[in-house]
């Protein structure tokens, strides 16, 4: 009965492979392949999605993400500095903001700025503005915490050395601390962009014109117009990967680079 370590490893490998085979077989048997063929993997009918999925869907997703990121990054930096401020009111405001916007669903924020604010103030915002504000304000809350951690990870001696050379506090922050903090937070920041890319799909709750469709809305539109079942959504999903996988690779590259320079 007693097995050597090598035998045990072999058995473990066989068991894992066995579970995998059974799981795959179960899926193959359980799936209704005929329906799947017409309404999930029906690639014959998706021709009309091109080239607009690039020119409208992908383009708008990139634009919405970029707008949200610009606001998120500048707002996040401001909040991070407020959280580290010596003025208590700033710390409280920043903490309150971060807790609130991290705590409520992004979808509700979109609804609030898409419908609530126009109702309350009697103004009509452009879609780009709504995305910029909603996505940006949610992103700012997450990015603020990332940046705060990055700023605090810069050794105290850096600030002391900068101040000893006669730099005012703000100059030491701008020239010495913030550049190093950004290097530290580059990997987590790239992950924030990935989350942002996907969250940009929440804009579907607003009424969009066809030229404003981003990937998800574009895919949903395809469901009703092409008669290929869910296939257009599958295609749209694949296009998200076109954005997010390169970002992931980029984050990994940053990570290995900063690991190498840290001796």
């Amino acid at each position, binding site marked *: 009965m007693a097995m050597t370590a090598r035998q045990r490893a072999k058995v473990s490998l066989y068991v894992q492979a066995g579970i995998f085979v059974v799981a795959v077989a179960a899926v193959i048997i359980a799936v209704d392949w005929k329906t799947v063929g017409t309404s999930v993997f029906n690639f014959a009918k998706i021709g009309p999605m091109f080239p607009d999925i690039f020119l409208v869907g992908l383009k708008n997703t990139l634009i919405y993400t970029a707008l949200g990121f610009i606001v998120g990054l500048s707002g996040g930096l401001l909040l991070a500095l407020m959280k580290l401020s010596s003025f208590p009111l700033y710390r409280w405001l920043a903490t309150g903001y971060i807790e609130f916007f991290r705590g409520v669903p992004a979808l509700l924020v979109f609804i609030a700025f898409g419908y609530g604010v126009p109702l309350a103030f009697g103004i009509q915002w452009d879609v780009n503005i709504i995305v910029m504000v909603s996505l940006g304000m949610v992103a700012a809350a997450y990015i603020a915490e990332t940046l705060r951690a990055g700023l605090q990870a810069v050794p105290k001696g850096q600030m002391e*050395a900068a101040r000893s050379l006669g730099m005012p506090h703000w100059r030491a922050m701008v020239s010495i601390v913030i550049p190093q903090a950004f290097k530290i937070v580059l990997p987590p920041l790239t992950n924030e962009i990935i989350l942002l890319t996907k969250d940009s799909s929440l804009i579907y709750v607003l009424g969009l014109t066809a030229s404003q469709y981003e990937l998800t809305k574009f895919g949903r539109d395809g469901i009703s117009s092409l008669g290929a079942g869910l296939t257009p959504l599958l295609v749209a999903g694949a296009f998200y990967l076109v954005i997010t996988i390169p970002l992931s690779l980029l984050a990994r590259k940053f990570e290995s680079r900063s690991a190498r320079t840290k001796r």
Partner: protein
Amino acid sequence: MNNSTGSTATVRAAGVNIKDLRKSYGSNEVLKGISLTVEPGQVVCLIGPSGSGKSTLLRCVNLLEQPNAGTINVGSFEATDPDVDLNKMRQSVGMVFQHFNLFPHLSVLENCTISQTKVLKRSKSEASEVARRNLERVGLGHLADRFPDQLSGGQQQRVAIARALSMDPQLMLFDEPTSALDPETVGDVLAVMRKLAQEGMTMLVVTHEMGFAREVADRVVFMDAGVVVEEGPAENVISAPTQPRTKEFLRRVLDPTHIGVEEA
């Protein structure tokens, strides 16, 4: 003190005057009324056991630590005056840290130019020229384009000295500059400091290098438990101490293998 190096201008040295300096962290008083004078051009070494307050005293001089009471005068600045222009004062006080604290995202040259261009508003070319001159001065002119993490500890510390010198300081503070170094690189850093002393720089040095203190310091100050126990010319304090506490400390430092063997 004569200025022996032709390439460097005569140092405009500033003196330091400390009176009744007190500093506490909570209820723990680490400086209990320190008075100390460093004349312009003098080299004063602070020695003493760890926790004696010597680093805190040094860090008070350029207000990295805020003293609770007492006065500090550095050249024409009263450091403890709440209205003092701290940034202006610090421009004339060079500081060298135990752990170098070079800016890792900047090249060696940029480490030495950034404060010149951003604070003194020197032109890029003038700042580079000053930086290169000071890197030559510490023997590292050929490493100007490297980054700090590509240098040995001793080289990094010499860059840190060049960085401080590039601001044309009138006083240099050294906080255990060789304590974090590999033994074989200590000598290079001490040689640079010795040269600096010969050029007439005012230097206040916290150190455990007794050989350096004896050879270079005009005066040695022995501190323990937040007070100055003994001070005077180096040969007196190190070679012929009068206070029992100084004797015990020096015996341990100079002959560490005899710790606890003989009770005085």
